[in-house]
């Protein structure tokens, strides 16, 4: 089985973010592997270990992605592709999916594993759109993957009415939630080996496509402005005798907030 895993470099959400003149202030930001993609990497490596698979990752954009890709190598991914092209500066999910389609078509993959969402967009679209372009089945929000045979996998998905168990014919795309696994920490030996491994860096031309073909200049949607989000203020906090303060708070919920 050949598995393609998508990995995006994203801003660290734990850090404070400032917005000025409609843009996020770059100063003080740090970039990390998208948490959902780290789970996708772990899921791929587990499939390799348990069922035998060849694992490749692809990352689009993000400038210098060497550290992130090496970390994925150290976790057990075998091949890395980095697509970097200034034409993709305004890319939205459907453009990223078009680029991923080109990567997929060059590699004859059986399974694509993407993160459920990128933590910088919180959008959750790219993998699903990719599957539409490829015309292959797709299940999103997956929390377990089991290989049935060469042509089929069985996945669990968190749905509205409970957990859905779905059998998928390969090739297929799945998008995984972070709760699918606990990503491993790379070990020293893996880290040392990862340093020697090459990364296949390409622009769109090297990938065999062009700005026009992926519609890079005309995204279906674009962010025109960032704004500060509404923040809540800390309210009243009570310490002391549990019986007293709890009775007080219940009174406030009923008579001040009027929500009881």
């Amino acid at each position, binding site marked *: 089985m050949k598995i393609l895993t998508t990995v995006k470099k994203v801003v660290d959400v734990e850090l404070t973010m400032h917005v000025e003149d409609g843009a996020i202030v770059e100063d003080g930001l740090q970039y990390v592997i998208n948490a959902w993609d780290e789970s996708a990497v772990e899921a791929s490596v587990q499939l390799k270990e348990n069922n035998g698979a060849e694992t490749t990752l692809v990352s689009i954009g993000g400038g210098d992605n060497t550290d992130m890709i090496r970390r994925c190598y150290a976790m057990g991914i075998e091949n890395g592709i980095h697509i970097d092209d200034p034409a993709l500066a305004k890319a939205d999910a459907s453009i990223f999916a078009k680029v991923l389609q080109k990567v997929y078509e060059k590699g004859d993959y059986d399974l694509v594993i993407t993160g459920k969402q990128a933590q910088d967009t919180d959008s959750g679209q790219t993998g699903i759109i990719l599957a539409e372009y490829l015309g292959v089945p797709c299940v999103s929000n997956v929390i377990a993957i089991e290989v049935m045979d060469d042509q089929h996998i069985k996945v669990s998905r968190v749905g509205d009415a409970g957990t859905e168990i779905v059998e998928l014919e390969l090739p297929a795309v799945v998008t995984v939630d972070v709760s699918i696994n606990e990503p491993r920490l790379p070990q020293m030996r893996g880290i040392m080996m990862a340093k020697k491994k090459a990364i296949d860096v390409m622009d769109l031309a090297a990938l065999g496509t062009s700005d026009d073909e992926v519609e890079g200049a005309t995204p279906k949607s674009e962010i025109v402005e960032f704004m500060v989000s509404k923040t809540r203020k800390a309210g009243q906090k009570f*310490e002391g005798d549990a019986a007293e303060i709890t009775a007080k708070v219940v009174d406030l919920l009923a008579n001040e907030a009027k929500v009881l």
Partner: protein
Amino acid sequence: MAKILVIADIKQGVLKSSTAELLSKAKTIGAETAVVAVGSNIESLTSDLANAGSDTQYIADDPSLELFSAGPYASCVVDAAKQFGANLIWFGFSESGKAVAPRVATQLDAACATEITDVELSGDQIEVIRPAIANKVMQRVKVNTDQLVAVVRAGAFEATEGITGTENVVKLSAPAPDLKAVIKELISDAIGEIDLVDADVVISVGRGVKDQAGVDLVKELANDLKAGFGSSRAMVDGGFMAHNKQVGQTGKIVAPSLYMAIGISGAIQHLAGMTGSKVILAVNKDTEAPIFNVADYGIVGDLFEVVPILREEIKKIKS
């Protein structure tokens, strides 16, 4: 005039409140409205669908549509969108909506935006507002196509009094099943369980409740209040709560009148799912817990002591 198609949110045979909220918003901005309902045995919902504020009801009712499957579901929505000539297609916040919206958008060659909190129309130009980066920022997104498929965040729009619709049913033919993604089983929620996203009060437990006994203790309070019962990720990972009870960035987004966080620290990813609540109460023994930064009312104390008192005091006030 804008034509807005709303996807009916149906769970266990009941129409959820998001449908009326989205239709209300659509009517308020002067749009022509339609709704599309997909499922099995849903004929009886027709008048509910009209009353929620739709003037046309596209209904795909077929035994093959009983269990959710994204492919056939998307086909029904695309079919309705084309027949209606919709330029805006709105899903309420749901896992099925998040799975289907990008498919519908791709098939229509339209833009797709998830988690939107507002929409602005001027002439043919569509813009949406949405939070991103775990709610740390808001984005204004310009749509460059004349059609937009969107998933609306829970609590973004309100149902308004006096919105009406008319019954005008258009039956959709059942789409072919997806033979390449076959749903084998649904390990479903208990029948009649209160849905987190719909509930007026939501009570969530975190690692502070420690174990099953702690979960059960808080569950009693939730039962008393007929509240939705949710949790932080820590309790889902610990195996104490079902996955679809998780509130947060990668779980459910809720916006109830009252949210109680019991033994939850208030990690940014949890806050991303509940800071839209009207009123927040936090119970935590750590006075420095970040949850207190967003709570309107905070009780610093041991939840095992506080929760039983909370139950008693609420009972008193309710009687």
